[in-house]
Structures are given as structure tokens and as C-alpha cells.
């Protein structure tokens, strides 16, 4: 499950929830009821704590906007609006759209998400400085997964 395992690697960087046979990886920066504790790795069969305690996020609004994690004030998190593959540049040869430290505006393209062969440009939708790129180039992202952190203050 190479590509899936790629998701796993990023567990440290985001609140991505990912389970693979025998292994569970989670970061509880987000105070979600489903996060049993800071950075849990379960070996062997997954334990019940997560699955049974984890009621579907009650706050999860019907309109489906992913709830924001608890963040330092002035930090805007850009999340994946769809499942897809994450690309930092228009093509393998060209430079990344943005680097850490770059100033971005509402219309600045941050990355491309490829879904069903379609390349979707993702805009910053805020003005500020890129402080973290949370996904590796070429890796898959889940819906709602955090991709960039931008300091707007």
C-alpha cells in the first residue's frame, strides 16, 4: 500500500487520521474527542479507545466545512477541499508555487490537487506569510487535511 503508507508518514505534521492494519497514527493538536492522546501509535490490532470513544465529531456541521484545529491566533490553515494528489508545482521541472517565508495573497496559487486526472489549482484565500508546508510533493491528501499554515497577523 505504498501510496497509502505515504499518508502515514505525514501523521506527525497534521491531524490526519489514518489507520492501517495493525497501526494507527494520530496527532491531537486538534482537541477532537476522537484523539485518544497526543501522538498515539498503536501496534497490533487497534484498541477500542479510539473507535468506540470516537463519536463522529458532534460539531461537524452539515455544510461540511472541516472544523478548524486549535491554532495560535493569526495562523490560517489551508485545507484540502477534495481527496487528491498534492503537487507543489505546475510540472516536475518548474519551481514550487510557494516556499516557506513567501508572502501570499488571496489569489496566490499554493498547490495543485489532482483528482480524476483533473488538475485543481488551490488558492491561498488569505493574505500573509507561508510558515509551513504540511504535505510532501506528490503525496495523496484526504478531504479536510491541512496542507499549509499561513501567518495572517
Amino acid at each position: 500500500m505504498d501510496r497509502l503508507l505515504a499518508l502515514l508518514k505525514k501523521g506527525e505534521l497534521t491531524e490526519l487520521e489514518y489507520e492501517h492494519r495493525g497501526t494507527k497514527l494520530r496527532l491531537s493538536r486538534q482537541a477532537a474527542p476522537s484523539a485518544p492522546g497526543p501522538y498515539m501509535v498503536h501496534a497490533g490490532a487497534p484498541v477500542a479507545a479510539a473507535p468506540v470513544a470516537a463519536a463522529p465529531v458532534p460539531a461537524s456541521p452539515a455544510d461540511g466545512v472541516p472544523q478548524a484545529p486549535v491554532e495560535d491566533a493569526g495562523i490560517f490553515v489551508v485545507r484540502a477541499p477534495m481527496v487528491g494528489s498534492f503537487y507543489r508545482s505546475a510540472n516536475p521541472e518548474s519551481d514550487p508555487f510557494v516556499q516557506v517565508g513567501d508572502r501570499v495573497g488571496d489569489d496566490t496559487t499554493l498547490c495543485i490537487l489532482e483528482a480524476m486526472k483533473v488538475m485543481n489549482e488551490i488558492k491561498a484565500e488569505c493574505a500573509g506569510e507561508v510558515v509551513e508546508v504540511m504535505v510532501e510533493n506528490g503525496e495523496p491528501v484526504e478531504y479536510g487535511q491541512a496542507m499549509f499554515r499561513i501567518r495572517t497577523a
Partner: protein
Amino acid sequence: MFRRILIANRGEIALRVIRACRELGIDSVVVYSEGDRGAPYLDFADASLCIGPAESARSYLDVPSIISAAEIADVEAIHPGYGFLAENAHFAEVCASCNIRFIGPPADVIASCGNKSRAKDLARKAGVPTVPGSEGAVEDTDEAARIAREIGFPVMIKASSGGGGRGMRMASNEVSLVNGFHQARAEAQAAFKDPTVYIEKLVENPRHVEIQILADEHGNVVHLGERDCSVQRRHQKLIEESPSPAIDAEMRERMGAAAVAFARAAGYKNAGTVEFLLDQRGDFYFIELNARIQVEHPVTEMVTGIDLVREQIRIAAGEPLGYGQEDISFTGHAIEFRINAENPERGFAPTPGRIEKMFPPGGPRVRFDSHACAGYTIPRHYDSMIGKLIVHGVDRDDAIRIGRRALAEMRIEGPGIHTTTALHRHLLAQADFVNGRVDTAWLERLLEN
């Protein structure tokens, strides 16, 4: 056989497919919406992927998200479960175009079975008895009236693309016919983007009897006997059983043969269900073919010992059935009770919420298929079924006794949560049910009093 399968569904049926995959040694990847985040069954799959927000239109019904998840997960096949995209010909087509096996029939077969009047034509050609009525679509009220006089009132006006009772009207005279015709077309247009309707003679006080079929990709087709689903409310089944109290072996033979004939005529593949109306005189009429695994499939599994979901996957992988009609036998009597988070006292209004206490029924001859447990929150966004209780007795009386026992020990409690458990207990106390004397209107008549 497949190495990895994506499960494009949720809840009970997603768990059912996860179980089949584990037993077949296939990796399962289950998608979920934010409304199902943290549900226990997600952990039983080998991997899970969030594909969208709680609302189905943007998650479980969103083809691009699901295909994209399938590509990321690098699966060879997708199991659609029931509902959502299970009978969506377009989705099956997209899967094919992406070289992902759709675990179900080919897109064109889904399309032709999904259109009621086309399906009815197919049945006639296959020599399967159908309800007398219009040969296909009815264009205007004049034609409707002519046909109605021909076959005699009362008649039903039905949407060609319809299902679940929507776009359906009964007419007992020409006045109600004209009104019903327009209402049905409007409803059909709204619900299915297709105003086409057709007309059928109303079969009075029928039973709903359906035949389970399996068809592999090498031309082998068998039937696994019938399920009697006459206990329903607003076309929603509540109790299903096999065998049917109204069917004997000879009748099973004839209905089974008719179902197989239709499946062959339709070029059907994989697991499917041919629905019939059975009238008081013992005549049966083809209604439709459901091109999916059905909620009530476990009752057939109990009496035949054949695992239908495993068979779906084997067939999709190109394996031959490996057995013929003569190899299929029936043991005992199975009954399924749908446990819905609904309040029968309040018009079966859904009661989502957090389950705080739960004691699932267990012990001998009891099977419980449920994704729920104490601590699980029933999301408000999806259908209210939270479990299926299936009992398997040596005969019908035994099954009823086991059902009473299991329903008596079932506990599902939480703030505001009600279930259909108490209603099932009540139904098992009715002489009509115990004597097997019910029709599709029985439950509604009972609830009115």
C-alpha cells in the same frame, strides 16, 4: 482474486463488506464522510479515507471524490453496498473507464433494469408474468384512460424511473386517474428528472416475494430461493423471512425459474434480486430486478449457507460459481428484523444521538449485523437503520420463539433514542403474523388501529 477493494458505503453494509474482505484475505479500504468520522467500523478496515463532509451529495454520492480515493488507495475494485451509488449506471461506467472493477452488474444492465417499463418489456420477452398494463410509457391521459378501461380499475400509475413509492398513484376511477396521472408525472420529474409514467392493474392484497439470484461471468445463473418481505410500511421493509409462509417447493421452483429466465434475458451478472407480487390466488407478477446486494440478504445466507457478499466479490473477480442449482438446498427458517433508530409512536421519526447503553442480542441461532455500540453516535445525516437482527430456527415457529427471546434482551439506549425493537415484539405477538397471514398493507392497517 483482488488484492485490495474500496468500500464506497457506510455503516452496517460497509462493515459487512469489510468482514467479507477479511475472510477472503483481501485488503479493504473504506471511505467515510465527516459525519462518520471515528465510527468503530472504520477501524476494522485495513485503511480508511475521509472523502467529504457529512452531506451525502458531497461524500458518498460524489463520484469524483470516490474515484479519486480509489486511485489514491490503488484498489482493483469498488464495492458500492446498497443505496448511494449502488445502482448508478454512470458510476459503474466511470469505474470501468478508470479500469476499476465495479462489484455489480455492467453499467448497461443496471440502466435497463433501473428503467421499470424497459425491465417489464424484458420480462415479457423472457416469458415472465408481469402485471397487466401499458406496454411501456403512457404519454397522455386519454391513452391512460383507454388502458385503464381495458385492464379494469383499480390501476396504479408508476414512474418509469421510480422506486420506494415515489411517483406512484392509485386510481379507482377515471377522475382519480387523471389527477393521479399528472401528480405522478410531476413527482417523477422532481424525484428522478424523468416524468415518464406507465400504468398497471392494481394487484389487491399481494405479498412481496423476491428471489435471490447469482450470475457469474461464465453464463452460470442460479437462484437461492425466496425472501418474503410483506411486512412493510410505505414500501419500507421491516421484517423479511425465508422461506415464505406462502410458498411451497413447487412454487419456489416456478418463481426461481422465472427469476433465472429474466436474469439471463437481461444479461445479468453478480448478485441480484427479482421482485414479484404474489396475489391471493397464488399468481405471481414480475415487479423489478434490484441490481445490488440487499439489506435483507442475510436471511438467504442463513438458510442456504452461502455468503452472498463473498460471492459478489468472487464473481466480480471472474471466478465461476462452482456449483449448480441442484447443489443448493435450504435448511430451517430465517427471519430478519430491521432495528431502526426511529420512534414508531411519532410516525417513525428518526432519533439520532449518542448510544449510552447497549446490550446486543446473542447466543444460539442469533446473528446481529450492526455497526453500533455503546458510545457510538447515530449521525442525523443518513438512514436510520442501526442493526439487523437475524434468527435461524429449525422451522418458522422456532424462529419466531428465538426472535421473541432475542428482541426481549436487546437494549439500545441514549438521550432521545428510540428503536423499532418494541414494535417488532408487538408484531411477533400478532396472530396474523404468527400464522403467516400478512400482505404488503398488513402493517399499515395494524398501525392505523
